[in-house]
């Protein structure tokens, strides 16, 4: 499963004077599920539209299945695509919508009918063939759009924020459904989203995009736990940032508030004594009080406690900074109290130095 199927090489896109995508490189394996994750306006849609062929790259090239498609029209690329606004053809029934690509490709009617029935079964709407799009809910329309995209057996599936127009419940269930269909068919997929939870829960790998660039490419685990830039660390998940001043570069020792913390070797990345650094910690890397195996501690004062059911989210003020952490709700021990002096501990290996 490491054969490159889609290859985006040095792609740049400018509209007039504004550059919207720069220096974009990505190799996608066959059958892989990739998410483009980033804030609105960062160029996700533009990059996807270049893969689909709706926009022409200003530079670079795009290869699909070893073939250069940079200059091919969208209708010559054999791609399936799902749009945010569903884009079902309002004048056609569900079955006719799903059959659209098959008919264009000239598939005989009997064969096409069988394929449509198969697709409607996959999206769990077997009896909806005769309905018109306006007779369906948003979630159903989007499933039909997925079936329409998949019916001609494309080699590549592109989805541009397909869930963002739906309400929360439908969004979560459809998310799982899309992923399971994708796995079953083994189709190479690019999924565009601005929702980190979607990206983290669905993807094999995530491309975090910022300002037209791919900031980091990695598995959800890597992106979340080892963000390589400040932007990624901030955009994905909740992040606690502490200011630290380098006290001894040789031993990677940093002073935070009134204590010294010794970081991993090399974490300082060439910073000199007296430099101020931003140190970041995920909430789940921090515990309240001392704990074996967590070598670093800081003193602080509890500033807020919110009860979320199975977990309790606690905010602790550390000097000028504040950190959030979660503790499990245990019925036998009382919850932390606001105003209490406390200690937090973590292991130095979990500290991210943001550059």
């Amino acid at each position: 499963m490491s054969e490159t199927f889609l290859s985006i090489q040095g792609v740049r896109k400018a509209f007039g004077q504004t550059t919207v995508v720069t220096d974009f490189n990505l190799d996608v394996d066959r059958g892989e599920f990739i998410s483009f994750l980033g804030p609105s306006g960062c160029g996700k849609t533009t990059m996807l539209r270049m893969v689909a062929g709706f926009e022409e790259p200003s530079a670079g090239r795009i290869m699909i299945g070893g073939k250069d498609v940079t200059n091919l029209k969208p209708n010559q690329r054999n791609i399936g695509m799902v749009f945010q606004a569903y884009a079902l053809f309002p004048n056609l029934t569900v079955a006719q919508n799903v059959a659209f690509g098959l008919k264009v490709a000239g598939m005989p009617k009997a064969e096409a009918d069988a394929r449509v029935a198969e697709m409607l079964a996959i999206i769990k709407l077997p009896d909806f063939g005769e309905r018109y799009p306006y007779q369906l809910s948003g979630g159903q329309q989007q499933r039909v759009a997925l079936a329409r995209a998949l019916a001609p057996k494309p080699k590549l599936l592109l989805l541009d924020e397909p869930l963002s127009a739906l309400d929360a419940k439908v969004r979560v269930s459809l998310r799982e459904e899309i992923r399971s269909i994708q796995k079953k068919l083994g189709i190479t997929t690019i999924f565009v989203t601005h929702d980190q939870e979607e990206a983290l829960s669905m993807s094999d790998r995530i491309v975090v995009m910022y300002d037209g660039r791919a900031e980091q490419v990695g598995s959800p685990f890597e992106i979340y736990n080892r963000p390589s830039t400040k932007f990624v660390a901030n955009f994905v998940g909740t992040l606690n940032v502490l200011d630290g001043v380098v006290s001894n570069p040789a031993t990677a020792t940093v002073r935070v508030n009134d204590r010294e913390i010794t970081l991993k070797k090399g974490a300082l990345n060439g910073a000199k004594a007296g430099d101020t650094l931003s140190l970041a910690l995920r909430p789940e890397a921090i515990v309240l009080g001392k704990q074996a195996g967590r070598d670093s501690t800081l003193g602080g004062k509890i500033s807020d406690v919110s009860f979320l059911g199975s977990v309790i989210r606690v905010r602790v003020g550390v000097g000028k900074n504040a950190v959030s952490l979660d503790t499990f709700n245990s019925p036998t021990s009382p919850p932390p109290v606001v105003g209490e002096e406390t200690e937090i501990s973590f292991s130095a290996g979990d500290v991210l130095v943001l550059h």
Partner: protein
Amino acid sequence: MKVSRFWAWATFIVGAAYFFIPLIATLEFSLRMRRGEYSFDAYRVVLGDIRFQETFGYSVIIACFTIVLGVVLVVPTAYWIRLRMPHLRPVVEFITLLPLIIPAIVIVFGYIRMYGSNSPIPFLGSTRGTDVLLIIGYATLALPYMYRAVDTGLRTIDVRTLTEAAQVHGAGWTTIIARIILPNVLIAVLSGAFLTFAIVIGEFTMASLLNRPAFGPYLQNIGANRAYEPAALAVIAFAITWGCMSVIQVLSRFAPKSANNPN
């Protein structure tokens, strides 16, 4: 409240009277051909007149060709403007309005000068050629209505996304226009078509100056020479126009419903 209600009704009644009294008077007059009693004699004479049948048939055929030409011209244009050149819309809209500003007589004199039998494009050199020119002229006259109808129809669908959805599934331009765009604006196209029909059936200037045997010049000719028949013809012409308008009303109920409302 009561007062404004009173004035609303008063205005309505005056308006209705202004509209209906001449109509009723014409209808009444058209029924009085036989002395002392009401009869449909005038209608029998008119409908039985071979020239009525010929000119009416001619105008219907010309109207059909005009509609086809209008659709072929306007649907792809309006579609393309919406899809690729939205910034040109005001310009195109203005151009389509020109036939309302430039009198038909100016257009037709232009035609006669441009397309005479010794011009490079001698439309007027043959009868068929003149018919073609007449159709082109009518398509121009109907342009403001056709363009507006189609453009309004296009506004109800997401032209760009639907086009891209069709393209990504392998469709070319012909398929997109024929299977996706046209069916979705069909009702709008039909209302444009009936407006065109109504315009062509009653048109006088162009047909007369190009010397074609159309219904408009026939109406005028009868009107100048007979007493009761013109009234009958006016009622028939009105019924045709009115019929076209009601068909548009009925059709608009069948417009495809837009489905792009997330819920």
